């Protein structure tokens, strides 16, 4: 079996200010795989996703991240996104004054330009947006509002999911995608994510709770504590964590 590695993280060290948060993190994700990284609060889960996506304010002091063989750390955040990485954020950002549809159109066309495809005109874009929104049960009214402004927690996550379904990333990173969601909203997100699956798209699910993993079933589960992976296993590891908690992994600290 010759699978291509999509994401390779090797001995990653990263710090915020003077504080080292990621300490020797290793992870390889192949095409089509779903990985869950689970860990207690403060383990550095959000730092991990931010470093992969290139958010300013984090300094990588050692190690490497490669995406489709390319050195990801040399790329600007927007270039990483256009290469096919999508970060579904824990706290999607409100942007007053920018209409949701305008924002999405810019994103879609930035990606199409990168892929040497013609940019979509407003008509074609609106059609695409409405089709995808309908599948996720998103009201057109919501798309007329400014980005995330006045959205409930559930609406924000639905909008993240909508962006994901339109941009069709090769790697989607779900950062605490279930935080603040009721079970119905959770299902919408999970359905949206699962609908992406065509055997080639990969997922990195970063979560504290096992709950989301009932809907998005991982191939691998990793326990993340004190800046690195302390244990890996299959989906049963998540159930184990749910039962026993993270105490066993954090006690050494």
């Amino acid at each position, binding site marked *: 079996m010759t699978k291509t590695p999509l994401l390779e993280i090797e001995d990653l060290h990263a710090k915020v200010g003077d504080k080292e948060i990621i300490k020797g993190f290793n992870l390889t994700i192949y095409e089509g795989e779903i990985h869950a990284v689970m860990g207690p609060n403060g383990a550095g889960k959000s730092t991990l996703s931010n470093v992969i996506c290139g958010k300013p304010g984090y300094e990588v002091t050692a190690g490497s991240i490669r995406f489709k063989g390319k050195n990801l750390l040399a790329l600007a955040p927007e270039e990483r*996104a256009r290469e096919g990485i999508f970060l579904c954020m824990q706290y999607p*950002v409100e942007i007053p004054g920018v209409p949701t549809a305008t924002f999405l159109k810019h994103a879609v066309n930035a990606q199409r330009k990168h892929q040497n495809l013609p940019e979509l005109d407003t008509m074609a874009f609106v059609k695409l947006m409405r089709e995808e929104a309908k599948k996720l049960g998103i009201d057109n009214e919501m798309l007329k509002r400014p980005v995330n402004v006045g959205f409930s927690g559930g609406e924000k996550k639905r909008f993240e999911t909508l962006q994901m379904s339109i941009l069709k990333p090769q790697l989607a990173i779900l950062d605490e995608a279930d935080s603040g969601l009721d079970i119905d909203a959770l299902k919408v997100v999970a359905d949206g994510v699962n609908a992406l699956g065509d055997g080639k798209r990969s997922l990195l699910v970063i979560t504290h709770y096992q709950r989301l993993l009932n809907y998005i079933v991982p191939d691998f589960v990793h326990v993340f504590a004190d800046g690195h992976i302390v244990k890996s296993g299959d989906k049963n590891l998540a159930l184990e964590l749910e039962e026993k908690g993270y105490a066993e992994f954090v006690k050494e600290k």
Partner: protein
Amino acid sequence: MAGLLQNKPLLCDDIPWINALRQKGRMAFEAQGVPTAKTEYWQYTKPRDLNADDFVMQNSEDYEFLSVDEAHDCHCGKGEHECHCHHGEHECHCGNGEHECHCHASHEEGINLAERVLPFEAYYLYFANGMFIPMYPALPAGVEIKPLAEAIFDGEAKEYLGKLVDIEKHPFAALNTAYGEEGLFLRLQNGVKLDKPIVIWNHSEVEDENVFYNLRNLIVLEKGAKAEIFEYFDYKGKEKSRYFANCVNEVFLAAEASLHHYKLQDEAFKANHVALTVVRAKREAKYQNFCFQHGANIGRNEVVVQLAEEQAMADVSAAYKMAGWATLDFTTDIEHMAANTFSDQLVKGVIDGDARGVFQGKIKIHPDCVGSEGHQLHKAILLSDTAEADVKPELKIYADDVKCSHGAATGELDENQLFYMQSRGIDADEARRILVEAFLDDVLLKIENEDIRAYFKSKV
């Protein structure tokens, strides 16, 4: 080669009242000089370039109306003393139908006016380097527009010129008064409501000379009249050319009159532009100002509104956006001189490079002006470490039972918003542009006319 005060021949200078007014202006400017950091309301904007001694002024051409005895064989049907279209044979835009024209027109100056229209329907009037180009749109009944010199000549300007401006406190307005010959006299009669905006297009085109010109507009709206006036300042020519445009508007709003006053300043980056607009609004009159500045080395726009009678209201808003070494200054002085008067100011600025944005906003509520409301908000975004915003709000409230507010905030673009957009593949520069546009969105909504709003938006 000379400084700002020059001895050039002035139109109508043999008429005693205008001569006396010009002398007063001259003396008031001599007494004050070019402002320094110590001059009140000039502490942030330093017009050093205006101390130059190489200013070049043109002499105004004699208008035809100034020699009334001259034969007049235009057949536009307006009568000898009313027609002042100096049109060329094939260049008539006055809309009065075909007739013989005698113009020494604009195309001789190398400016193709036919192409000079903005993307909305309007009545267009043109100035080139501060000189009126005598072409008149076909105006509806009850609307009168003529060169200031003509209104001086026939005496109509006497009632208005210099009546609102305090030249003892505004050095450049004093200087403007010392010349007082170029500009427009614009009057709407009782109840006339203009169907289209009036565009006053002030075009500058300068080579190597440091051109200096003055413009003085008198805008008179009689009772219940309604108009939109769009002042457009643009520039074509060498990038590094210097010039100085010194503009004064005096605006008289009778009871229930309404004026939307727009200004777009899109000039050479070495240009110096100083403008003062003084408005007197009577009972229930409404003055709405929106100004967008983004060109010029120094661009100063000062708006003074006297809310002189009950229920008068003013909305004085502005946006500015600049980079390089520019200083853009928006200064307001709103005087609530009667009870139950209202004012609102929203000013937003985007500053990059080594540029400096200045906002000085004053609200004064005179004694006994109860029930009045004055609001003011300034917000600026700094896009570089060397950009600067200087903000001076000033509230002087001498009456009880009034509502006043002011606020000022200066910050940077939100990093999280920027990253959010980048993480969706949008270029950092494009994301910044979108955020800047969003930042200016609410101030643009102050513009009621949608075509004009769209035009400003395209300029932002």
